[in-house]
Structures are given as C-alpha cells and as structure tokens.
C-alpha cells in the first residue's frame, strides 16, 4: 500500500495501461425498438461503433435521432433489442438487471440531458452520493470529491445546494459526479444544451481536459457542430443510423 500515489496519476495511468488495447466501447449490429401502443419505434438500427480506450467521440444528430438511446445502451441503462454491446472488454448485452446495476455503479459515468442533481444535497454531497451507493472507502471518496471540485473550479461552491448554483455550475457538478466512480467510459448527453455559446465551449474544453488527463473515453452528444472540434472524432446519427 503506497499512500503517496496521487489519485489522478495513479488511476489514470493504470486505467490506460490495463485498457491500452481494449476499446472502451464496441457496438455490433445494435438495434433498439421501443413498443408504444402496438406500434414499433426503431430508435437505433444496425449500429456499429468502436470507441478507443481514451478516445473522445462527438455524437451529432437531430432531435429524435436516437442519441440518448445509444448512450443509454452503451451505459447499461437500456438493453438492446438485438446486437452486442461490449464495454471495456465485457459483453454486457446479456446482463441481468442486477448485473447492469453493478456495471453502471462501477464502470461508467453519466451526465444526463437534464442535469438531475439531488436538490437537497450540496455540490460536494452530490459527488459523494456516488460513493454512498457503492459503499467504498469514505476517506478516499472525500479526497476525490475535493480534488474534482477543485479541478472544476467549484471549490468555493462545495457547500452550496443546486438551487444556489448557476446552470454552468450545476453542469460542472454533474461532470464531477460522473467521474467519482473512476469510470473508463463517460457518456455526456448534451452537456451544453442549457448553456450559452461561450459557456458551452468552456464546458466542452473542460470535459476534454478532464478526460485526457485521466485517459478516459467519452461520448459527447450534441447537435451543435462547433463542439465537434473538441472531439477526436465525430459520428453522425440520423433516424437511428450511424455514419462516420
């Protein structure tokens, strides 16, 4: 047990080393069909996608094209109707609900389309909630939360409730929360939709920094073409079909 290894270096380095060859995400022939009142909505069809171990992908497409659906499947929130989903080398397409819960807890980070912070918890506690769920080492979690808040420029807002934070600050808390469980893949569902252009740019820049410093892979959903500049690669989606 070496207490000296700083967390960002430590976890980031080992994460990269272990997964250097394994893609963060592989989707093979994924199809998702929603059934609504006897009608079938095909939200995702023949989706093929590989996200490298520390790659940042921008997923761009019009409203209703299936972006959120893709993220939900990649993050183990939804199961695909057909196809294979492999995250960090593990095929999660056959997972039970319980296995998926554990998978979400341990392996992925989410930033939801609507920020979804817990209203009665402070910024710092919103990060620590992740740790309460997984029941990990409290001391380590406190350290990590403080470090993330610092990095995200929220150190002086740690004790504020979400209602006392601006839209951008809330968004940053949500980013911090998604990184608490040291995930190998983070899914950002329109992290800039509620922000103005300048703030949106800053936010994506921040996301890029956070991802690159940790060697974490990410999918950033957006319908703002400008943001794609911060990504390593852009994937387009229309009517549930992906095209590079």
């Amino acid at each position, binding site marked *: 047990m070496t207490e000296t290894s700083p967390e960002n270096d430590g976890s980031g380095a080992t994460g990269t080393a272990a997964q250097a060859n394994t893609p963060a995400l592989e989707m093979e022939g994924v199809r998702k069909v929603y059934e609504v009142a006897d009608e079938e909505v095909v939200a995702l069809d023949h989706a093929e996608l590989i996200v490298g171990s520390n790659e940042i992908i921008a997923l761009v497409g019009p409203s209703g094209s299936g972006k959120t659906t893709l993220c939900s499947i990649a993050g183990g929130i939804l199961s695909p109707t057909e196809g294979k989903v492999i995250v960090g080398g593990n095929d999660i397409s056959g997972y039970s609900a319980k296995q998926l819960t554990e998978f979400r807890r341990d392996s992925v980070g989410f930033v*939801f389309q609507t920020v979804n912070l817990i209203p009665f918890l402070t910024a710092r506690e919103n990060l620590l909630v992740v740790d309460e*769920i997984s029941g990990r080492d409290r001391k380590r979690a406190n350290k990590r939360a403080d470090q993330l808040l610092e990095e995200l420029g929220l150190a002086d807002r740690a004790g504020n409730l979400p209602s006392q934070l601006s839209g951008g600050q809330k968004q940053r808390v949500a980013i911090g929360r998604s990184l608490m469980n040291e995930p190998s893949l983070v899914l950002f*569902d329109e992290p800039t939709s509620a922000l103005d252009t300048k703030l949106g740019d800053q936010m994506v820049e921040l996301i890029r920094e956070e991802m690159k410093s940790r060697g974490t892979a990410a999918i950033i959903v957006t319908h703002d073409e400008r943001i794609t500049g911060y990504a390593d690669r852009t994937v387009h989606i229309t009517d549930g079909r992906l095209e590079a």
Partner: protein
Amino acid sequence: MSLALKELRRRPGRFGVATVILTLIAILLMFLGGLLDGLTAGNTGAIRAQQADLIVYSATSQDSLVRSRIDPPERRQVEQVKGVDSVSELGSVQLGARIEGKGPRDLVPVVLFGYESASTGLPTTPTKPGEAWADDSLESEGVETGDILKIGPERSPVKVIGFVNDTRYTGQSTLWASMETWRKVQNENRSDARVAPGVSQALVVQAASGANANDLAISVDRATNDQTSSLTEDEAISALPGVESQQRVFNQIIGLTVLIAIIVVALFFALITVERIGLYGVLKALGARSGSLFAGVLLQAVIVTLIASVIGAIAALAMAAVIPPGSIPFIATGSRIAGSAFFLLLAAVIGCAFSLRRVLKVDPAQAMGAGQ
C-alpha cells in the same frame, strides 16, 4: 442510508404532516393502553394482592366472590391436599361508606374485605376488631389514618389504621379487615346473607414450592368432591366481572388505531415515493440498488415513528403525573409504552411495504430522459 437521513434533516417539512398525525396516533394509543391498564388494575388489585397460586370458590358460585360460600369442612379438606402449603380465608361485602367530615348522603362505594394474615400482598399485622387497612384511593376522598368510616345502612364503624396500595376491586376502593370484622359488618348490613362463624367466601391457597398450580387446582377440586372451583390467579382475574370484555373492547380499539397508523404510513410514504420517482431514477442510473433505496424509505418511516412514539411516551408520562389520583384510572407503565411503540414501528414497516413495488418499478432509463 445517509441520503435518507439527510433528506429527513434538510426537508423536515416534507415529513411534518406524517409526524404530527403519527404523534397523535401514538398519544391515542398510549392513552388507550394506559386507561385499559388503569381500569384493569382497579378491577383486579384485590385479587393480585393475594399473590395466590389458587383462589378456591364454591362450585355453584360461577366463580364470583359474592355468590361463593366456603364452609369449615371444605377448608379442612383443602388443607389436606398434597402440594398445598397454606390456606387462608377471604370474604367481601360491597357497601356505601360515610366519611368523617362529609355530608350524611355523601356515600363512597367501598368493598370491605376480610382476610387472614397469610395473604402476602397485604400487611401481615393482624387488624383488631373494627379496624382496617384502606386502599390509598380513599386518601383522595379525604380519608386519613385514624378516621372512623361508617359502613352500610347500619353505619358499622371501621377505623382506618393505615393505607395499602393497588388493592382496588371492580373499580372500587377497598378496606382490609379481619375475617371477624367482615362477618360482623356483613351480618349487620346484609341480613339476607348472613354468614356463620368459620364461613368465608373463598380460600386463598399458596402452593408448596415446586407444585404446578393447574395440577393443584384439579387435586383440590377432587379432594372436595367437586364442591369447589379452583382457579389460578390469572384465571381468577379473567373471571372478574367485566375484566375480559373490557380488555376485548379496548384491544379492538387499539387494533383499529394501529390499523389507522398502517394506513397513514402507507398513504404518506406512497405519496413521498411518487414524488421521488425522478430522484430514484437518477440514483438507479448511478447504480443504486432498489433494496437500498427501499431501506432508505424504511429508515425514514422508522425514525418518524420513533419521534412520534417518544412524544407519545412523554405525553403519557406527563398525563399520568398530572391526573389526580382517584379521578381517571390511568397508569403509564414501561411495558405499555414500549408495546405501543413496537406496534407503531410494526405499522410503519407494514405501511412502507406498500411502497416497495413502486420503488422496484422505477426505471433508470427515465433519468436519461430518453424520448422526451
């Protein structure tokens, strides 16, 4: 877990209504229980004070003291039974008492008992003719040591030489005198039911150590050729007029109150759970298990119920302290308070169970806002 606690602390208003209603229910529950205990104590004190293994009535008495007569030969038969350690006599007469310093029409109903010194729950000091120990409920009627009460239509004088505690009978105050004094008062005032010397109403039996009371009851009745009906102390208490029906009625009301508590918790936490579906969706998306989310609901319900129970207990104790003795028969016992709190907690757990399905059903996908 700590999430549930933080919500309780930071949003107390959300739980205020439930806490108030459950507190009222707790107070009601403990008040009803205390009243039942008070009434039962007032009905059964005289029998409990015997600390008897058996109370022996005559066979035709339907186990009622006033209808029962035990003659000296029966007493001797009972004394011969193997396993009987000691036998003493008991007699009672219910009359109106005139208290010194009160108006001549101001009668207090009392039951005058005759007993022998063997009764362990009462003073063993034998009372002289015309003297009696008084139950302390008579103190609140203004009776003092040394007072002479005039008992019954014939105004038989009985001098109070001191007080005993928790010896009431069928809700009335009691006087404890010698068997001779009882026979004298009975014969003076109840010319229709005179008793000859040596006759009593019941026998109080102490079993020899190791003897089983139920078996002994059978042997005693066999020894008297079924001229007697022997009851254990618990049976004798249940046989007292009104005790069982009183307990049944109160327990029904208490049961109904617990049922209402279940409904209150069920409705209230179902409501809170519905309000929290969004929150649960997010937590599930972050990897929280349904079980731990439900444990949080349970924890909140248990804490709210504990708060209600503590306030209820304080109210019950305060009530017991404030109520003047002799007015309302209310006592607050630890076991009653703990029992009420236990039933409320049970109600909270059962009430919460109705929300379990809803918590399980929450879909983490809704946190993603897919399809909105």
